């Protein structure tokens, strides 16, 4: 065998991953600085601080949803999977709303960790139900899983509306913005710190599982045969996706479709290797949501209606994107 390819068999190296990481970090910082300077208000120290908090929040939310979406898509071998569509975000949303009602009625003492804790309970409960429905004798049906997610979303939506009936009218107005996914410029620093820890931990573990995600793309049996503990990987990925989504929802409400759009764009840029994809999706997700939120903030400033919920932009772009991917998937199935 004397093919030229014989001399050039190369593989992904640690150095390449480190280079990727540094470049993406620099790009994310550049986007953050650029976004912080956009706007009609004068850049006083206070405005600057508020914008930075807001950008940090948006970046964290985008990173969490995109990395969780990438991991779920890899695990389920389905580009349509993401926390919002699988009902994880709405589950976390129910948790947050239940908490706010309990606090308003004096049944629960509000602390800085109350919101993320309840969001996590809601996200985990939704994950458990969706996973429980789709799992049969150790096999997970990706399509049953997606359909279960749709049903759980409807159920959680009804729960949220029911909870609103118990709320005061002022809270209902707040909810409308929050329910669409809105980044605040007054996020509590303790909450931001806790959510940062959750997101970074989840992202780091998912990154370390990149090689397992690659193998799972060949089917559960092949993945198991090369040494992947398939059942453990499923439980771990769902748990981490729930944790990261809960952190995102606690910060900005259920922002949709970030976990769908960003991983797809990353696949076009990077290829199929999930060791790079999980890394890229976290950074690109942060850049995407910082840019989208800056657009919402400045648009709100121009028309003097305050800030627009960033979830509007992600839904307006993500909805058609989902249909585009679904049509492609259906064509593949028909062929």
């Amino acid at each position: 065998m004397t093919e030229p390819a014989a001399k050039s068999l190369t593989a992904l190296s640690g150095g390449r991953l480190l280079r990727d990481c540094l470049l993406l970090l620099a790009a994310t910082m550049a986007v953050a600085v650029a976004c912080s300077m956009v706007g009609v208000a004068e850049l006083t120290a206070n405005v600057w601080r508020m914008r930075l908090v807001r950008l940090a929040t948006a970046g964290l939310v985008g990173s969490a949803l995109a990395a969780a979406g990438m991991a779920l898509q890899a695990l389920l071998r389905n580009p349509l999977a993401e926390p919002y569509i699988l009902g994880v975000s709405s589950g976390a949303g129910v948790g947050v709303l239940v908490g706010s009602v309990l606090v308003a009625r004096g049944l629960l003492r509000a602390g800085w960790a109350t919101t993320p804790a309840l969001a996590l309970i809601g996200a985990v409960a939704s994950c458990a139900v969706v996973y429980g429905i789709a799992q049969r004798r150790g096999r997970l049906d990706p399509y049953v899983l997606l359909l279960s997610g749709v049903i759980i979303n409807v159920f959680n939506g009804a729960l949220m509306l029911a909870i609103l009936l118990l709320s005061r009218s002022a809270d209902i107005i707040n909810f409308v913005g929050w329910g669409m996914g809105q980044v605040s410029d007054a996020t509590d620093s303790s909450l931001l710190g806790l959510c940062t820890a959750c997101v970074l931990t989840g992202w780091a573990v998912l990154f370390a599982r990149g090689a397992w995600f690659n193998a799972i793309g060949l089917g559960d049996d092949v993945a198991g045969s090369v040494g992947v503990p398939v059942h453990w990987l499923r439980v771990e990925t769902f748990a981490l996706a729930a944790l990261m989504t809960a952190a995102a929802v606690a910060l900005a409400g259920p922002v949709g479709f970030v976990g769908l759009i960003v991983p797809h764009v990353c696949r076009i840029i990077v290829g199929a290797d999930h060791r790079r994809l999980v890394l890229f999706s976290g950074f690109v997700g942060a850049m995407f949501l910082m840019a989208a939120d800056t657009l919402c903030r400045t648009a709100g400033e121009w028309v003097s209606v305050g800030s627009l919920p960033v979830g509007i932009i992600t839904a307006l772009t993500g909805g058609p994107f989902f249909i585009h991917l679904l049509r492609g998937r259906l064509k593949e199935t028909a062929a």
Partner: protein
Amino acid sequence: MTEQHVIQAAGVEFQYRPGQAVLRGVSLTASAGKLLCVLGPNGSGKTTLLRCLLGRLRPDGGTILLDGKPLNKYSPRGLARLMAYVPQTPRSAFAFTVRELVLMGRMAHTGLLGLAGAQDLAVARQAMIMTATLPFASRALEELSGGEAQCAMIARALAQQPSVMLLDEPTSPLDIRNQLMIHRMMQRLAHDWGMAVVCISHDINLAARFADELVLMREGQVLAAGTPAEVMREDILQRTYDVRVELISTGDGPPVVRAN
């Protein structure tokens, strides 16, 4: 290869639903240096047996030992260093290149991120040379023909450096040339590389020609087991497939089966 690896199933029982047994006391032994083909009609439990041997399904009864140790005592990583698997259809949900695919076979030998070192690249390269897949190392799996893609899957399995190789109907989507090539390759893995090779097959004639041992299954049970000369009898094949068969002598090789 000095070590004599062996996988033994004894009295394996399995059911997906209560009362619907798929495997009923199946026993077989696959030894190093031999190609064992499992034959039988659709629904006879062949693939379920293979998934039990692979450790993906836990039998409801009986034991499966790999080198004398129960399968469930191995870690996934430990098992992957000893045993590899090739599925019926080579497919991937993501557009991996052949190189990326073959290097996945090194996962049980590498660290947390599965980053391949010089040794891993050398093993992967050897596996690709063995399967003639090196010329298209940079092409995506989906761009390959069925035969090429199956060879890439076998290269991925070889990169694991296993002692036992399990293949689930690896030639069913392939043309006759590729069927021959894969059977020759399996025979070489057993005879030249000293592996214990277990292959599920639907092609009686190719199995009889290349295998050292045949196991015939029907309705979750082993009807007959032995060398091709012992098993290739009209009465056994008729009982296995429930169809009249005729054995036509070919002179030098085993007789050819014709179903009537």
